[in-house]
């Protein structure tokens, strides 16, 4: 159940078979059902989740009980709460499964071992961290100043197949718009691009 994670490390951090064999001893995998909650606010979660199969998301809930999606994590993505994974503080987020999923737990021991075993791993994680910050910067900027259509266009570029896997209200929540606005954006696009003949 570690196939995708192995390929991910081979491709990105040039970890070879032998190194992976050492590292795999520090990995825990789990199959979870749709709707399983992996992290609740107030808990401390000492690991990140790599998605081998399926789809996870992180989200917050406001006082009125409305969910706000922070991140989707389909196959080959990592999702975590950094407050708890890196600063040992309680989380503000939920992490749950939107589909039946297979996940790999990445904890501190694994990270330390990976730094030890592979020099490339440190270079890779640094780059991945900057890439993640770049993504967050862009997301903040889109949420502050982009139109609903611009946010949607960025979303389908980043997550091409999620419109097929995730209910529209959840995507609207990620985009910070109402489901009605998302529907309007899709209707406008259809008017532009749908040819009946």
């Amino acid at each position: 159940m570690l196939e995708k994670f192995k390929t991910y490390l081979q491709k990105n951090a040039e970890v070879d078979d032998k190194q992976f064999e050492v590292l795999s001893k520090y990995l825990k995998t789990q199959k979870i059902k749709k709707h399983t909650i992996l992290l609740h606010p107030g808990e401390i979660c000492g690991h990140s989740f790599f998605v081998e199969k399926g789809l996870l998301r992180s989200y917050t809930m406001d006082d009125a009980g409305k969910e706000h999606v922070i991140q989707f994590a389909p196959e080959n993505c990592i999702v975590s709460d950094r407050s708890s994974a890196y600063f040992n503080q309680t989380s503000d987020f939920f992490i749950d499964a939107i589909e039946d999923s297979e996940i790999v737990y990445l904890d501190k021991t694994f990270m330390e071992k990976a730094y030890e075993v592979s020099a490339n791993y440190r270079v890779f994680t640094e780059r991945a961290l900057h890439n993640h910050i770049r993504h967050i910067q862009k997301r903040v900027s889109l949420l502050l100043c982009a139109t609903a259509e611009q946010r949607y266009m960025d979303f389908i570029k980043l997550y091409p197949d999620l419109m097929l896997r995730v209910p529209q209200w959840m995507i609207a929540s990620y985009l910070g718009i109402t489901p009605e606005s998302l529907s309007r954006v899709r209707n406008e696009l259809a008017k532009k691009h749908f040819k009946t003949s």
Partner: protein
Amino acid sequence: MKTRNIESVITPPSPHFVGDGFRVHNFIPYKADMQRMSPFIMMDYGSKFYFPPTDKPRGVGVHPHRGFETVTIAYKGKVAHNDSAGNSGVIAEGDVQWMTAASGILHKEFHEENFSKTGGDFQMVQLWVNLPAKDKMSKPKYQGLTNEQINKFQLPNNGGVVEVIAGQYQDVKGSASTFTDVNLLNVKLNKGAVTNFSFPAHYNTALIVVEGNVKINETEVVPTNNFVVFQNNAEDFIIEASEDAIVLVLSGEPINEPIAAQGPFVMNTRAEIIQAIEDYNMGKFGYIEE
């Protein structure tokens, strides 16, 4: 006459829900491979299941299809359908909806409003029929066939009736038009009736027992909700009704082309799937309200 032998009798796998309105057992591709069963690339069978009354109709919201046809056969209950090509209708008991998604369609399927309010037994088959590469991007089409519009062959000696949805049975031609040679027969047999079927040996052939028990080729007893896949060794097989029975018989010419399938899209290549996803995201399938 050489007998077309049974390859396997498949008991219904555990059901799962499609949306909140369709409780189905998947026979193709979960139990029988889609290339093996071509042109039948998906078959969900909703065995008889009671849905209690509700004010909010259960079903599946807006979703796309490209590259094939969806065929819905209603045995119990009613389904309301709307699509982005402007078609809508209700499929009631005995009716068939033959929707050609082809180049792309958005549709939604819900239990009909009054059926939802009263609740009741629900039983359906949904079949996906593949399209050859040359027709995958043709214009979407919709054939709503009420039971009265379906051509029928009356079996002799009060044996029952064969509803010829598509293809041909004896001298009766099917009501639905198809892109490749597809036979879809809804066979309603009275107890004791025996009837035979003949399709070219290379046509992939199967049946599902919707009601009652039947005996096939004078030997194999097949109970309700079981799916039978036939070998491609010969043309003919016989169905005998051990009690009043309904059997859906499917037989079609295989489409020998590569299949690339992801979710609601069935194309020939991975690149065409990526294109379908992109077109769907960009509104090229049109729009209908949630």
